[in-house]
């Protein structure tokens, strides 16, 4: 009886809605998928055998691994020095650079992929320029090859690598470098013996993030690569649309999943175990996997501290020496990386104002014709409206369900909490194509393919995970005695939540809602599988356009898509900044 009473009061009950959605839309279908891949109830590995007996499959599999590994490696080679230079820069420069990395991170991957088509295409910016200058007489084959795939993928994934790295590097205790120097370590030695090992968690989470993302996100390779550059995920998606042979699809999906899990466990679990706090560190390392969030704390906490020991820390961080030459080399490097990250978007925005009958760079005249065409064409603005509707529904559903779950998890025993959080985050930690396939199956069973409800449910899987991560981290910073104080003043549990907890975690809840909306607004892979061709969201319409005929209106759409996150970023920034109670203090101090 007493146990029963206790169970009834357990906050874990609040996670039920989240797990119900997860289980119905994703959990059960993925189990069915696995069963069909092993031919249950016959239980055989024939499907896997068949997969590997076809040389074409094996080639695609190796190609997938090769592209993912190389793209991850390139991101790391470019990202590590960039992150290091960002962290060692002066505060003002650092904040600017971080913002410049966050902007592309928040920008639609589809829009950025489109930007590369515009730049690298046969009639693209580069070829046009070279033709114009008379350097070449026929367009160079810059697009639809492996190089273009790498250029596009590294461009898309680089923020995913840089942000966790910066986060990890900013967490390194500054006095450690000073200590190493005081013990006679020369700058380079101090870097390799102290700084580098301490930055490894960032290397790990950045690499994991990029690698798993590469495995599942087929949009960029499909758009920029040639026919021979297909990834396994492209194959899977194609199979769903051409011939829905479930056992074959399931097999490919599970092979992809197996690679992801192998890499996750190799990098993720080993290192966590080596740190000797596997159980508790697990949820945190997942938090790092949503880099934008990991950054938030550092980013916004810098403002109140900006006057504190600015020079001192900057100098200590200059592990690689301080010569003028190395400073210039560093500055040039960062500049190139930033141009690489930002210029494609900028070019598209500029081109979207072209006056001619097709897109030009630089535009010969300024006009709003493509924007007019976007707002005037029902197929475009209808798609935008659908996306907004779905996005709002996803934001509401996942914010409510995710906040409840985060609150419930926060009050659960730490070991159980770690496990449950990881489970809720599965849809954002495994290759997205696998989630898409499972969700497709789940929605088929529910009869929701091609319905808005179905799309909202499918997109909410990931969005709930995002909300849980953001709200959980906000809750972790919440002083529990505030709730006890409320209860000691006769506030019941609901009153305590509404009057004390919710106002205090509101920035996290709103942030979660914003990111849930953005997640939905950008989603292509899962949505394209479950939309059943009857519903067009904006990204779907764009994707279709990119693959078939390119309507210049897309430039206007892409520009708008790049603008939306920047606006959101400003909104969030203002809110988070103002939400910090200490800032009232700082502001009034500054005023006097």
């Amino acid at each position: 009886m007493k146990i029963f009473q206790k169970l009834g009061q357990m906050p874990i009950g609040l996670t039920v809605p989240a797990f119900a959605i997860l289980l119905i839309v994703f959990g059960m279908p993925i189990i069915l998928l696995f069963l069909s891949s092993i031919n249950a109830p016959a239980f055989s590995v024939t499907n896997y055998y068949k997969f590997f007996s076809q040389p074409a499959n094996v080639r695609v599999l190796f190609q997938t691994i090769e592209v993912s590994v190389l793209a991850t490696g390139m991101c790391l080679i470019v990202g590590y020095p960039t992150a290091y230079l960002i962290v060692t820069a002066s505060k003002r420069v650092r904040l600017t650079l971080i913002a410049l990395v966050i902007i592309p991170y928040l920008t639609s991957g589809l829009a950025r992929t489109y930007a590369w088509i515009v730049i690298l295409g046969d009639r693209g910016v580069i070829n046009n320029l070279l033709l114009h200058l008379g350097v070449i007489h026929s367009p160079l084959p810059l697009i639809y090859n492996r190089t273009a795939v790498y250029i596009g993928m590294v461009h898309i994934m680089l923020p995913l690598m840089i942000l966790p790295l910066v986060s990890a590097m900013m967490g390194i205790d500054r006095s450690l470098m000073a200590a190493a120097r005081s013990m006679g370590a020369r700058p380079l030695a101090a870097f390799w013996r102290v700084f580098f090992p301490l930055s490894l968690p960032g290397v790990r989470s950045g690499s994991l993030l990029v690698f798993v993302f590469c495995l599942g996100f087929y949009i960029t390779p499909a758009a920029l690569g040639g026919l021979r550059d297909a990834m396994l995920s492209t194959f899977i998606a194609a199979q769903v649309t051409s011939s829905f042979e479930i056992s074959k699809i399931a097999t490919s999906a599970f092979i992809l999943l197996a690679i992801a899990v192998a890499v996750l466990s190799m990098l993720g679990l080993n290192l966590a175990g080596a740190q000797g706090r596997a159980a508790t560190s697990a949820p945190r390392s997942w938090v790092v996997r949503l880099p934008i969030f990991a950054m938030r704390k550092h980013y916004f906490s810098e403002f109140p501290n900006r006057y504190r020991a600015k020079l001192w820390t900057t100098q200590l961080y200059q592990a690689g020496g301080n010569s003028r030459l190395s400073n210039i080399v560093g500055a040039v490097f960062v500049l190139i990386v930033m141009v690489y990250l930002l210029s494609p978007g900028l070019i598209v925005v500029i081109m979207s104002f072209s006056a001619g009958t097709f897109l030009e760079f630089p535009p010969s005249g300024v006009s709003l014709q493509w924007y007019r065409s976007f707002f005037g064409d029902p197929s475009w603005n209808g798609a935008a409206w659908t996306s907004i509707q779905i996005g709002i529904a996803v934001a509401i559903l996942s914010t409510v369900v995710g906040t409840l779950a985060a609150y419930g998890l926060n009050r659960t025993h730490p070991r159980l909490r770690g496990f449950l959080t990881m489970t809720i985050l599965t849809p954002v930690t495994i290759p997205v194509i696998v989630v898409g396939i499972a969700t497709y199956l789940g929605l088929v069973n529910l009869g929701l393919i091609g319905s808005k409800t179905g799309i909202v449910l499918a997109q909410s899987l990931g969005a709930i995970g995002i909300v849980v991560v953001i709200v959980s981290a906000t809750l972790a910073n919440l002083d529990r005695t505030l709730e006890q104080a409320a209860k000691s003043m006769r506030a019941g549990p609901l009153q305590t939540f509404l009057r004390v907890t919710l106002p205090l975690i509101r920035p996290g809840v709103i942030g979660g809602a914003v990111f849930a909306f953005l997640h939905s607004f950008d989603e292509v892979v899962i949505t394209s599988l479950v939309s059943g061709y009857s519903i067009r969201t904006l990204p779907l319409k764009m994707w279709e356009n990119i693959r078939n005929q390119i309507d210049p209106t897309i430039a206007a759409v892409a520009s708008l898509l790049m603008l939306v996150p920047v606006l959101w970023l400003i909104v969030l920034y203002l809110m988070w900044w103002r939400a910090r109670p200490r800032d009232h203090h700082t502001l009034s101090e500054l005023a006097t």
Partner: protein
Amino acid sequence: MVKNPVLPQIEFRSVTKTYGKITAVRDLSLTVGCGEFLTILGPSGSGKTTTLMLLAGFEAPTAGDILIAGRSVAAVPSYRRDQGIVFQSYALFPHLTVTRNLEFPLEMRGINAAERTTRVRRMLERVHLGDFGGRMPSQLSGGQQQRVALARALIADPPFLLLDEPLGALDRNLREQMQIEMKSLHKEFGTTTVCVTHDQEEALTLSDRIVVMRAGQIEQTDSPEALYDRPATCFVAKFLGEANILENCNFELETDAAQPSGTVAMIRPERICIVAPDAANRGDADRRQSITGTVDDMIYAGPLRKYHVRVGSSVFIVREHVAAGQPIFRPGDGVCLDWLRSDIRFVAA
């Protein structure tokens, strides 16, 4: 404000609280009388906060029972208990102004807006924060925050008040000032108060009774004077003030009564006189004992002088008020220590 006529009595009956393998509180029995100011004193980790959290209803006892006014409160959630709590971190709601913070407990009790405004104003005046109602907690100094926390705990006139290290975050001067303030508030409201602290001075100044805790158990419960003057155990003697333990000495200890087994002899540093060797023994030699030693060290502490005197292999601590005409001894000086035999205490080892 009117004193609550029937103040409840708090009773712990063999309360045990375990967290997994850790026993935070073991078999604790304790009664807090009406209107009493009781302090739970103990080193860090001795289970003080846990005891307070049990009483507040934030933790449930693993075994035993807690009674308030004779009724078990095990099944009563904290928000249905009538209590005021001052948390160690104050726990002022950072998103509400001082006024809104003070109104919170009144609102929860369904008191109307007009009445709330009056009571908040009166309470703010009472804690000398009349002009601070519109501020956010982050715009207050530590001492002001402390007073707001105290005001918030008392404003709904709860029958008992719980304080967790209430002055721990304040600097020394402020702490003394707040001690006086708290004492006067307690006198005025007459609220039964349970205070938790590791600061012996705070405990001695404020309390009617002190409970000394060690490793989750009660070591001794007594009035401040009795606790200091007649500590029951060596731990209490050392935790509350300083103590010279007279063990393995190179002289025969002269005592009035026989030493009970399992005890050690103890004398407080201020009960020992330090004099030049030739000036020893002042008449009533039959009631005193003198020994000789060498000064190891001397520390000035404002109005006090503290000597470390080596006698054989042991070192005595001697504390003396600075007074005119008193000789000052330097390290290396030979001195004579003497004390009244009746100042020797036997404490459980």
